[in-house]
């Protein structure tokens, strides 16, 4: 069953590295995190080993509410890449999380014409392979 699911998933998978593995592992538990510097307090997404404001490696993981709003989006009608060419149109968006950070993602469970900038959205976890879970967003319920 797992093999079958892996074969069916044709879209590119993230190249997870040791620096980012904790973030991806949290997604597998259906938890979304951003990071906060323990020294200067600056918050950041996507995850990295040090603060971009002061280079401190002292990092706190902040659990997100999973809520946010659409900052901007596009409905893609042409993409030759395997996996995406079979799922046109799909919606790509920058979502501004309640934590104040913007995250590139997909909007799901809605049609392109239903999407508005500023629209409240909530996270939905897609277990696309046994190893990888993606955080996507749908209109808030």
């Amino acid at each position, binding site marked *: 069953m797992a093999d079958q699911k892996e074969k069916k998933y044709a*879209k*590119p*998978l*993230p*190249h*997870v*590295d040791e*620096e*980012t593995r904790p973030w991806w592992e949290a997604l597998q538990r259906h938890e979304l995190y*951003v990071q906060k510097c323990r020294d200067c307090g*600056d*918050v*950041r*997404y*996507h995850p990295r080993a040090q603060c*971009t404001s002061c280079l401190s490696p002292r990092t706190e993981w902040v659990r997100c509410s999973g809520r946010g709003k659409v*900052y*901007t*989006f*596009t*409905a*893609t*009608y*042409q*993409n*030759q*890449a395997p*996996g*995406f060419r079979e799922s046109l149109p*799909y919606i*790509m*968006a*920058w979502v501004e*999380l309640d934590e*104040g*950070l*913007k*995250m*590139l*993602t*997909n909007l799901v469970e809605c049609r*392109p014409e239903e999407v508005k*900038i*500023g629209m409240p959205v909530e996270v939905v976890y897609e277990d*696309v392979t046994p190893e*990888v879970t*993606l955080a*996507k967003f749908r209109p808030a319920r």
Partner: protein
Amino acid sequence: MSLSRKACVAGAYEHPTRFAPDKSMFQIMAESIRGALDDAGLTIKDVDGLCTTGIGMGGMGIVGFCDYLNLTPNFVDSTAIGGSSFVAHTAHAAAAIAAGLCEVCVVVYGSTAASSRFAIGTGGAGGGGDPCDQFEIPYGPTTVGAYAMIAQRHMHDYGTTPEQLAEIAVAMRLHASMNPVAKYRDPITVEDVLASRVISSPLHLLDCCIISDGGGALVITSAERARDLKKKPVYILGTGETVRHAARGQRDFLEIAAAQSGRLAFERAGVKHSDIDMAMIYDSFTITVHTTLENLGFCKRGEGGAFVSGGRLRFDGDFPINTDGGGLSSNHPGMRGIFLVIEATRQLRGECGPRQVVDCKTALVHGTGGALGTRHSGATLILSNQ
């Protein structure tokens, strides 16, 4: 130390090809260099500096190209920041010449993007090789999609319309109709742009640049050396370059690299916006032109839609840009920065025939590389024939 008027463009050549399945990338580059050196009245023996990069090249591509042409330059620069690279190369060549690192530097680009069938805008962006790509590639980013998200946000915040963006494509096509080597030369209307299919909302097919083969080269040398050469020198007055990205999740996406690179170029050139007689603005998409003009400070944020409307961007309008027809209609072999500098040079020399901007003394060039809605670079040059 000011770079102003220390170096100049002494030779410029645009390869006329738009489809060259019979040629290699390096062959197009070599033919372009021959054209630019002929234009300057120099030979390959005079060249002691080389700048290049390309979508078809590996990380050490410049060394391979030196092998191909048996070059052993004293200065090499292969800065790879996307389509703007060649604008940055021109600035780097000027700095190298001013610093005495070389005297005659060639900037060159060539590509068989069309005949090799590269899906540049819609083939899925991000190779997945860079650490940051893991947070983008799972969601299906395309180059056009990343620009479309800028357009969507601008329309939301300021009421910019698809019609206003379409005006940019219409003006570029008019210019292409006056350029015998442009790929698409039949005039189009705003209605044609809006009736073309949506590639990534809100951008239509005709909001997007074309894909062609092509190449071009520039010869950059010292102001002193240029005095004795064939053509009237085009002086490099000011330069600027930088990058923008998601800024750890805190970016204002309508602020782009041009805001910083443009400010630097104006400061260093010591000229005002009102001094600019024509501009070459990288037109990967209509929104690229619109947002670049706002960020360069030619109009306020939010006023770009009105600024580009009413034929103002035409060669005979208030603010002529991209008089060769741009990437939207003339050529876009994967990267286009070199052609921005070439056409600005031709305008400043008065070589543009029916599309010549009257009394053109000072020109601005701005290249964008990458994608405005994710990671991108910007490089600005201010050039003058005085």
